[in-house]
């Protein structure tokens, strides 16, 4: 993807100038942009704000502020277990997805073979399917498999993780492939010229250059798995729900500072991870 080509002194040459008839247009533009940002971010702002409200019932303006809801949320089994469960699923799904995805990306981009375009499409396809549809399809398939294999799959930890791996693989493949395409091939050639065999050159030079992308893939996969709702809805079992599902089920009946606290925790966790990921790979290019 292209990046802004102008920096430093050159930049002034191309800075947008709107003279003449609408001198206030620039101001209007900036204000509008600010408004749009507020529009996109205000739900999150309000959720976090609500989580500190003194009163148990939603009421503006709040009579005071407190941290008690965070304590209450953690004491609530559904949320505490949901948080832990989501963590467990996300970690495992991210690890598996990254391992499989990196391997696949390397095979497709580096060792191009006859079906690599098709394989690439296949690996990215889960992104195109609505989560609900995928979740249901997998649920029904699991049921059929259960009968066939005579074992429990639906509602199990393993069953959910495997489904989530189908979410993490496409993102990993996307991130790692993009990074590989951007590498300068002459660097690996230089390594071979200096005496490294193909294998050594790959392990000591190319792979380390891919490390940022791989780390970003792992973090991003974690986030994608943790916040997932639609796929997981059909695949969770009693006593084992993910945090987003627990939040959703609560919200269908109730809106209060407790749930706001839970949501805020999710916002905080995923927000931090996103910031960290951004250090490794420019997220704007990926999403």
């Amino acid at each position, binding site marked *: 993807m292209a990046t802004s080509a102008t920096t430093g002194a050159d930049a002034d040459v191309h800075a947008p100038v709107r003279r003449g008839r609408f001198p206030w247009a620039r101001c209007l533009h900036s204000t509008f942009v600010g408004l749009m940002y507020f529009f996109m971010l205000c739900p999150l702002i309000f959720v976090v704000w609500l989580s500190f409200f003194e009163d148990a019932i939603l009421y503006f303006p709040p009579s005071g502020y407190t941290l008690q809801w965070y304590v209450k949320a953690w004491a609530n089994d559904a949320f505490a277990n949901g948080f832990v469960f989501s963590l467990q699923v996300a970690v495992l799904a991210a690890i598996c997805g990254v391992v499989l995805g990196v391997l696949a990306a390397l095979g497709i981009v580096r060792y191009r073979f006859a079906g690599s375009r098709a394989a690439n499409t296949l690996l990215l396809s889960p992104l195109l399917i609505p989560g609900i549809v995928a979740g249901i399809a997998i649920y029904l398939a699991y049921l059929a498999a259960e009968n066939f294999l005579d074992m429990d799959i639906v509602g199990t930890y393993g069953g959910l993780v495997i489904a989530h791996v189908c979410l993490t693989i496409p993102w990993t493949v996307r991130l790692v492939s993009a990074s590989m395409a951007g590498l300068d091939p*002459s660097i690996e050639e230089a*390594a071979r*010229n*200096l005496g490294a*065999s193909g294998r050594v050159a790959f392990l000591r030079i190319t792979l380390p250059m891919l490390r940022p992308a791989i780390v970003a893939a792992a973090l991003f996969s974690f986030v994608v798995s943790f916040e997932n709702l639609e796929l997981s809805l059909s695949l969770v079992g009693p006593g084992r729900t993910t945090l987003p599902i627990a939040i959703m089920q609560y919200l269908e009946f109730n809106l209060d500072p407790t749930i706001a606290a839970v949501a805020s925790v999710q916002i905080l966790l995923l927000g931090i991870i996103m910031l960290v990921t951004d250090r490794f790979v420019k997220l704007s290019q990926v999403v």
Partner: protein
Amino acid sequence: MAKVSIERLKKQFGGSVAVSDFSLDIADGELVAFLGPSGCGKTTTLRMIAGFIEPTAGTIRIGDVDVTPLPVHKRNTGMVFQRYALFPHMTVAENVSFGLEMHKVPAAERDARIRTVLDMVRMTQLRDRYPRQLSGGQQQRVAIARALAIQPKVFLLDEPLSNLDAKLRVEVREEIRALQQRLGLTTIFVTHDQEEALAIADRMAIMHDGKVQQVGAPQTLYEQPANLFVADFLGKMNFFRGAPDGAAFVTERGTRIAAQSGAGGARHLGVRPERVRLAAQPGDGNALPGTVESAVYLGSLLEVRVQLDSGETVSSQVANGAPRGQAPIGTGSRVYACFEPADCVLFAE
């Protein structure tokens, strides 16, 4: 360091031939420049010598060893890449150390060699920096140091100066030449810039469309080009088409030019612009009358185009060292374009 023998090297990609029948013997310690326009096959040839491309036919010998079947990492040809190809995740010192590790040089000697080679390129102070913290010229020097550290048998440079700005290019090429001579490195230098090649090469190989046009010392190639392409590619040349007539050459327009003996079979005659003097009166040697068409001031040179009475045009290049106060050559003035028979080059094509 070793000599290099390239025998009948050929490379074909599908239907098109990138390099055909390339043969060359490079002496130990010699710097040979591969020069030519883009797409002439010079980089392909270099990469075949390094081992990145497998030749369709032919052999490459380094020393007395046939390296053609050897993989890249076993050939010990130190290469400097066009965009330096430094390892971004390693410091300068680590970059240089890499090749030494690959060649299993023991640690103590490794450190010594790293120090020596970084001193040679004056990068000792920056040994702990990362490539992204270095300027283009500095990265260039690290790339050279890295290639030299492994004490390669052949030193290969793939257009190493094309990414540097003009002033730096001259500095760095002189440094490379000095280093090469001091160390007695057998070197192959690929470039599309003729000034570079002329300045530093012991011998030049000019390539065009995959074929070697001529190999020789810079002076030989410039003064005695073997064919029209070389004559036209190196510097500028005035061409006349015609046929020999006795000991002279008669152009299509009937101009009679005294060339050196052996004009038989020639179809073109060439003379360099700097060999063409403009005089008010004819002297000995050839003197073609004409009118000045244009005089372009190029700083240190004056390039004058003269329309000969016979209709042809001749370019003359005059150094702007004439005494001050002398009247400049103006358009429209009548002159004689004078040049010696010995300065004429005859071409069979």
